[in-house]
């Protein structure tokens, strides 16, 4: 019996040891991926004014984190310098995992801006959601053209303290 208790203790300690490696330390700056290009930040509003101009080369953006993917941590929304505007940064599941508790902290992200062409149906859904959020009325028949949305696929992200 005593031997079994000792074995159980060893196993329990091993589990704790392994899990200890994996704890996410949330204090201080959190680094994901490579090095951010903090010396060359472009305002989100500048990018969103002419997003197609920024598709070819990597860009670096900065903003307060105002949204995080709750279950996978696979995206974050960064607030723009312009009111009501934000830009989503999105990674493949597991490539970077952004903590939900990072909301409200500042982040710098370097990566490529991607253009996603929506179908007309999807465009209506997105527009309806935006109108609902803004408290505006929305008539789906008023949308006749599909739109595109933009998101940053980051190669490096720093979440600042």
């Amino acid at each position, binding site marked *: 019996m005593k031997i079994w208790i000792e074995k159980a203790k060893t*196993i329990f300690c091993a*589990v704790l040891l392994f899990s200890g490696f994996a704890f*996410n330390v949330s204090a201080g700056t959190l680094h994901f991926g490579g090095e951010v290009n903090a010396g060359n930040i472009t305002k989100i509003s500048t990018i969103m004014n002419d997003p197609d101009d920024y598709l070819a080369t990597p860009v670096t953006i900065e903003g307060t984190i*105002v949204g995080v993917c709750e279950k996978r941590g696979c995206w974050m929304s960064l607030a723009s310098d312009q009111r009501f505007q934000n830009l989503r940064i999105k990674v493949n599941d597991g490539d970077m995992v952004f903590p*939900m508790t990072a909301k409200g902290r500042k982040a710098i992200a370097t990566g490529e801006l991607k253009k996603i062409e929506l179908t007309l149906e999807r465009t209506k859904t997105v527009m309806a959601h935006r109108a609902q959020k803004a*408290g505006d009325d929305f008539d789906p028949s008023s949308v006749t053209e599909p739109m595109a949305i933009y998101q940053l696929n980051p190669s490096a992200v720093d979440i600042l303290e």
Partner: protein
Amino acid sequence: MSSTTNWYKLNRSLHRDVGYFCVGLILIFSVSGIAVNHKDDWNPNYRVDVTHIDAAGTQWHEENDSELILQVLSHVEANVEVKASYWSAKDEFKVFLKNGNNLSVNLATSSITYERIEARHIFQAFNRLHLNETKESWVIFSDIFAGLLIFLALSGLFMVKGKYSPLGVKSLWIGLGILLPAGYIFL
């Protein structure tokens, strides 16, 4: 002592010791596997409690963010530090607190949504390992672990001789273990 007996003894000893070594990781991966399998039903990394507060009758200070923050906080809890605030829409103002919680006020309806976030530390740690968020060295370790699991599976076939060996009636279990996943793939 015959060489056959020795081989069986060695196989059983290795199976036992490798099994002991793998217990911790098998538990971690199994628990995390169940957790992330059901991520649509619950959040495996955070406990999020959402409370809706009716603040009807409040005259919101929309032109002054600092005052607006104080107004919002007065409806929830005192002595909390504010990390940042953000206007997500013309009627929607968000306040992010240093303790990780968040507030969102809809000025049109005077309703406040209070989101309390609490990390599930153990699950988070297990999930980080399972989903390989730590990368690099963990990849090597996971590969070794996968190899050990393969060894456990194969060595398990040679643990018992005679009536209960995998060549006897117990082969039904092996067949079932292969047929069930095969069924999911091909049916």
